């Protein structure tokens, strides 16, 4: 990879504990601009936790997160890490788009309202500008005709595409996807996959946690296999899928999935 450039986001020794359980156990990772990283691994291996940490939705217990080279989001107090003030963390989050498994659209706003919400409330853009951006983004995900309906009337795939548009409207530098297709009916996976594929083709930096190996095979620059809170294997899709012999755990895992 582009080791000569500065990583967009860089994790050093990230540890996250829940009571008696260490969900992420010292992860190091550097993602470079334009890179498409896919993380796979069994349930409970810490994939979501890691992704959420990158967006400061989880407060990590140890480690350093660098965003565009600068240490970001944490202060030391009484010898422990603490999430920084809202004024610091919120702008950081605004630079990173996140798409959830269950969409989490705002049900009380129309599709257009959902997509405009970030620019309006967080970036304080004037309504016409926010609307223009929202129109663009909805066109990009192919939902221009659904602008004025409420999310409740959409299919799962449409919902997820709105969620992607909502995140894109903030013009993020990095997109995080946490199992974006797991809650969809099998037939609806395709449309969301296509949308993300198009986004990748535009050069967006993205990290995708998924159970659908299609993402890993067709989209990834790099695939990481995670288990028990650590990276067990890392490589190009070819390395991970074709040369399976390299790791027993991956082999078992993949045999169950496909």
């Amino acid at each position, binding site marked *: 990879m582009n080791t000569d450039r500065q990583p967009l986001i860089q994790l050093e020794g990230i540890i996250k504990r829940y009571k008696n359980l260490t969900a992420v156990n010292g992860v190091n990772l550097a993602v470079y601009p334009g890179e498409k990283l896919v993380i796979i691994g069994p349930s409970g291996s810490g994939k979501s936790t890691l992704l959420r940490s990158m*967006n400061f*939705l989880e407060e990590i217990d140890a480690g350093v997160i660098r965003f565009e080279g600068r240490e970001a989001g944490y202060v030391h107090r009484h010898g422990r890490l603490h999430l920084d003030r*809202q004024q610091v963390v*919120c*702008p950081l*989050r*605004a630079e*990173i*788009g*996140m798409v*959830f498994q*269950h969409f*989490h*659209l*705002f*049900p*009380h*706003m*129309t599709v257009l309202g959902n997509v405009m*919400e*970030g620019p309006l*409330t*967080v*970036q304080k853009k004037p309504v016409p500008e926010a609307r223009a951006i929202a129109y663009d983004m909805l066109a990009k995900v192919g939902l221009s005709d659904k602008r004025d309906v*409420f*999310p*409740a*009337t959409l299919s799962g795939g449409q919902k997820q595409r709105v969620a992607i548009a*909502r*995140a894109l409207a*903030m013009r993020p530098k990095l997109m995080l996807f946490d199992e974006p297709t797991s809650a969809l009916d099998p037939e609806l996976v395709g449309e969301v996959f296509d949308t993300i594929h198009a986004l990748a083709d535009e050069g967006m930096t993205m990290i995708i946690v998924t159970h659908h190996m299609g993402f890993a095979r067709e989209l990834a620059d790099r695939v990481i296999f995670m288990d028990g809170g650590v990276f067990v294997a890392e490589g190009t899709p070819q390395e991970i899928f074709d040369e399976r012999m390299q790791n027993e755990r991956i082999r078992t895992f993949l045999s169950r999935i496909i």
Partner: protein
Amino acid sequence: MQKTFSRVATALLFLWMAAAVVFGAAADPDRLTRQANELMGQGDLAGAVEVLKQIPPPAGGGEGEAFVRSRLQIARLHFSLGEMDKALAAAREVLALYPDNSEAKNFVASVEQEGQPRYVTFLKDCIRFLPALAKGAVMTLLLVLCTIVISPIGGLLIALGRLSTFRPISAACWFVIWFFRGTPLLLQLFFIYYGLPSLGITLSPLTAAVIGLGVNYSAYLGEIIRGGIQSIEHGQMEAAKALGMTYGQAMRRVIIPQTYKRLMPPIGNEFIALIKDTALVSTIAMVELMRAADQLFNTYFNVTALVLAAIVYLVFTTVFTFIFEKIEYRAGIYEHR
């Protein structure tokens, strides 16, 4: 046996009375009254009437007590014998002399009513009571509306306070909820109205009532709103944060608006209860619907006032329920497919 005795006694009394008249004894009202009572005690109502009739009207504007009493007693006796006309005549004798005598007036009014079909009486009562009840109903409405305006705001503040991670604030809000939900509104109103003056704060009844109801319902709504906020799926807060919103922005733009629909039913229920709880402000001397009805009942000894009040309450609660359902429907319009 007893009847015979009573007849003998009556006869004797008449003899004695006759003797008194013959021998020129003055018709002493006191004695006559006592005689009549005795006859009544023996069940001889007609005899008692005769005796009482002998009590003369007061001479020249003097005290008419004995006369008034006797005529009213005569009226009552006639009434119980079913002789309405004679009863009325006796009572009107009193009114001729003392037009304001309330006892006679009441008597005439109720005897006249007795003769009419029930629904006429009822309708007349309605018309008679309506002005006072309407006034009370307006006060009830005023109190309800004030509380409906105040308590959601107070409730929201208390709810946010309870959810605050800053302990002193959440503890204070817990205390407010615990205290105001734990003691009867009646007592609270009492302390606000009668107790605060000793701290130098003297409130008008309306102010005290609005504060009492406002704080009480804020405490109730506080718990409900907190429940509503907590019932919003956690993912909504996550999504808002992921967009870069602050806690305040997320609450204001994302979380709280979603509670409206699901809060309407429990809040509507509270407000329905409120309509009836306003009746308690009569403790601090405010005349609202219940008090007005009770006063009418007390004054006229007439249950119609209470029946009317029940009907007005039903109308209020039904109309409010309808409004709340409409609001709930509109608040949840985005959930319809």
